[in-house]
Each structure stands twice: as structure tokens, then as C-alpha cells.
């Protein structure tokens, strides 16, 4: 689903945020991306969502070399990547329903379909009773779940989350993680950046560790071995 081969990212100004990254994530796999602050976790996710482009090497998502996607095709790529942000990135002047509906409105779905899918998505994150509420009236955990509902509403094959449990208490964090596990179980590829080591090590998933812009450890090497077949 995701393949990095010798991918590097140098920001304008000359800082190397990622250097020679190699890994492969199989479809339906769930993995964590961890590392110290400034290690390059967010940068790696940005490369997958084409918010940034690799300076060297290749990033292949869903069989497509991202370097070959022109600027005007980027939106269509992003529709296949559900993104969850630490700071939620919600529209505060629109209701929960309208926020979650946005990806569907962008894709041009009919009113009827939008209603059905938005409610299904809100149901999955347990916020069906809040659809008329404005994000500002919700707790941090609830806002995070609105973000998740929006990311999965059009059923993307790939889900990226950047510090989704950033400042949530442990119980809420586990709750959010179990939502991700559910998606993984129905075949969605999930990659979660987090430095919440406690949480990660208690879960049975592959962990990619970044250190000073390099991939220093990959706990799930079995996927790397079968990588060539995808």
C-alpha cells in the first residue's frame, strides 16, 4: 500500500528531515510511527499525502509513484488518503454534520447519499447524537473523533493519523486506538505517528522508529520481506 524506497526530504533551507527511508506497508496493515520530537514523523506522513514532495528516492502509494502526480491531480490523490490531525483541523463555523460531510460534498455526492454516509461515519465514532453541535462545544476527544469520522467518511483505503492522541488522557487514547483497530480489521491500511511509547508498546502492532531523520528500527520486518510482491 505504501512503499518508501531511498526516500529523502530536504526542506528549503537545507535541513534534512528524512534521509534514505525504506519500508513497505501492506494493504490492511496497521503500524505506528514513532521517534523523538523533530525526528521526521510528520514529514513522513506529509510525503504520503503529497503535502510535501520527496527530494530524492521514491514514494509509492496504492501502486502510484507520487512524483508522477501533477499539482492539479493532488486533490484526487488526497481523497484516497484519510488524514487525521493533532489539531483536528475542523471548520468551527459549521456543524459536526457539515464538517464530516465536507469530503463527500467535495466529491460531488448527492444530498441523500451524503446524509446516509455521514450518519454511518458518526455512528462508528459514537457521535451520532452530536451531529447538530458545533465543534467548539465539544471536548478534545470528541473533536478528535469528528476528525476521524471525516477522514473515514468516504472509505479511503489508507488512513494516516498524526499524534491523534496528543493531549488526551490514557483512557480516551485507548478508545481512539480501538477505533483505528476496527478500521484496520475491515481492510484499511493505518499508519499512526505517535510518541506515546506506553500506549504503542502495549499494542500488538508493527512499530517504525525514526531517529535523526533515519529509520532506526522496524519491528515488523515480515512485511519488509514480502515487500517485493506488492
Amino acid at each position, binding site marked *: 500500500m505504501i512503499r518508501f524506497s531511498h526516500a529523502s526530504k530536504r526542506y528549503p533551507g537545507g535541513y534534512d528531515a528524512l534521509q534514505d527511508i525504506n519500508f513497505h506497508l501492506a494493504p490492511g496493515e496497521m503500524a505506528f510511527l514513532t521517534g523523538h520530537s523533530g525526528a521526521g514523523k510528520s514529514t513522513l506522513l506529509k510525503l504520503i*499525502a503529497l*503535502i510535501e514532495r520527496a527530494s530524492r528516492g521514491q514514494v509509492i502509494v496504492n501502486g502510484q509513484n507520487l512524483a508522477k502526480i501533477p499539482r*492539479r491531480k493532488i*486533490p*484526487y*490523490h*488526497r*481523497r484516497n488518503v484519510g*488524514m487525521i*490531525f493533532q489539531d483536528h*483541523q*475542523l*471548520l468551527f463555523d459549521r456543524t459536526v454534520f457539515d464538517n464530516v460531510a*465536507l*469530503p463527500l*460534498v*467535495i*466529491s*460531488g*455526492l*448527492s*444530498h441523500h447519499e451524503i446524509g446516509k454516509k455521514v450518519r454511518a461515519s458518526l455512528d462508528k465514532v459514537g457521535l451520532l447524537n452530536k451531529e447538530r453541535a458545533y465543534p467548539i462545544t465539544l471536548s478534545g476527544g470528541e473533536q478528535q473523533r469528528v476528525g476521524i469520522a*471525516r477522514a473515514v467518511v468516504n472509505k479511503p483505503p489508507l488512513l494516516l493519523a498524526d499524534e491523534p492522541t496528543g493531549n488526551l488522557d490514557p483512557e480516551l487514547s485507548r478508545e481512539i486506538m480501538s477505533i483505528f483497530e476496527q478500521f484496520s480489521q475491515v481492510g484499511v491500511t493505518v499508519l499512526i505517528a505517535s510518541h506515546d511509547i506506553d500506549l504503542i508498546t502495549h499494542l500488538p502492532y508493527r512499530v517504525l522508529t525514526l531517529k535523526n531523520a533515519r529509520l532506526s528500527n522496524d519491528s515488523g520486518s515480515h512485511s519488509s520481506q514480502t515487500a517485493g510482491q506488492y
Partner: protein
Amino acid sequence: MGNWLHTYLLRHLQVFFYSLGQLTRSPLSLLMTSAVIGIALALPTGLHIILKNMQNISGDLDSAAQISLFLKKSTSDAQAQQLIQQLKGMPQIKKINYISREQALQEFKRLSGFGNALKALEKNPLPAVIVVQPSLSQSNALSNTAATQQLLEQLQNKPYVDIAQLDMQWVKRLYTIMDIIRRGVIILSALLALAVLLVIGNTIRLAIQNRRDEIVIIKLIGGTDTFIRRPFLYTGFWYGLFGGLIALLLVMTSLLLLSDPIEALTQSYESRFSMQIIDFNSTVWLIGGSILLGLSGSWVAVERHLREIEPT
């Protein structure tokens, strides 16, 4: 396919009215921006309509031109009267005014102040003049001009007539002045249209900046430029429409206020002129042009500023 089209149109309609809803949330700034556009557009539109009215008047005046028949010096008063009787029989002629040689001399003395100089002359140097006013057909200014020309040629060939002269100098001068005004109006229109473009462009630029976060989010979740551009284009459309309507209102009230005195003035010139406020064509041009300016102003602003806003 039909279903897809239906959804597509519905989506446009939604954004169309959504952008209107957004605008009416701050009615004061909507009103002020529209008023600026309206005033800028009212000025050239008003001048254009006044110019059009002037053309109508001058069409009248053109055909109302007088023909002066300068008689040969040898013509006696009796012979002149004979000619006048003959002319009175012609249907193309509405009014005849005879100025004898003596009257012409008196008039000249009175007007020129050269009385003493003329006394030195033994003989009266001025010819007698018959001033003829052609009758007008009630409808068509152009055919009037042709008829006047024809009449002129006829009169030229009458006995005792030395020179027949169509008095059109001042009409030509009026045309020249009107041409200058017309060019002025075109230049003014272009400048004010540019001003409207800038006003709308700047308003949309501010709207884009105000919604920067929203644009970033929409880009993050896969919104195309077209999708993001749409509400701003419709916003430009609404500004153009409201600006155009305000301009129309301003032009109509101003011209209504002007029409009474102008009609009083033209009445004294025996004109069958009546002030035309604004015709259908001009209205369509005004509103359509205004909407077009709104759309292109916002298009330019969106093209310039949308690319700068990218998620990081």
C-alpha cells in the same frame, strides 16, 4: 447521466445561494461595497444616456435647419413677393421669413456697429434674403435630412435666387462637441470599470484571507481549485449584480430629477423631444456588464491568491 447533471446543477445552486447567505451575514459591508460599485457605474451610464438623448435632440435640429435664399441684387421687392407666393404653395415649406435689402441693412447696422462706415457707401451692398423653414415629417430624422437636401436643390434653381444656403454650421459644431463627449465617456467608462475590477478584486482578496484556514482544510481533504474557487466567483457575481442594481437606481433617480427642467428647456426650441430615462438595452448592458466585472474581478483575485494558500 441525467442524474449526474442534476446533482451537478444542484451543487452549483447550493453554492450560489450559500455565497449569497454568507454575504447577507454582514449586510453593511455588502451594501457599502455594492454602493461603491454602483456609484462608479452610474456615472458613465448616466452620461451615456444623456448623450443618447442629445443625439435625439440634434436629430430633430438637423432636419429643422433653415435655408437662406440670397436674392440677386437686381430683384425688386415686387419680384421677391412673387417668389414668396410661389414658395408658399410648396408643401415642403413650413414657414417663410422675408428680409428686404433695407431691413438687412438696418439689422446689420444695429448688430455690427459699422453704421458710419456703411454710410460712406453709396449703394446698399446687402442682398435681400428669404429664410425658409422646411416642414418636418413627424417620424424620421434621417429622411428629413434627405428631404431638406432635396428642397435646397429645388430652391437653388428658382428665379431671382442667387445663392441657396443650408444653415448647418452649428449642427456640425454640435456633432463635434458630442463626439468629444462620447470619447470622454468611453475613457471614463474604461477607467471606472477598472476601478470596479480593483474594488471587487480587493474585496475578494480579503474574503480569501479571512477564510484561509477553511481553504487549507478543504485542500487537505482533497478539494480541487475549481471547488474552492466557486464560492468566491459567485460572491463576485453577487457584488456585480447588487452594484449594477444600485447603479440603475441612481441613474434612474438622477435622470428623473433632471428630466423636468430639460424638457422645459427643449420645449422653448419647439422640439418634440421628451426625455428618455433608460431603455431596456442599456439596462441589460449595465447589469450584464456589472456582473461580468464582478466575475472577472473575483477570478483575477482567486487566481492570484489561491495558489499561495497551501497546507504545510
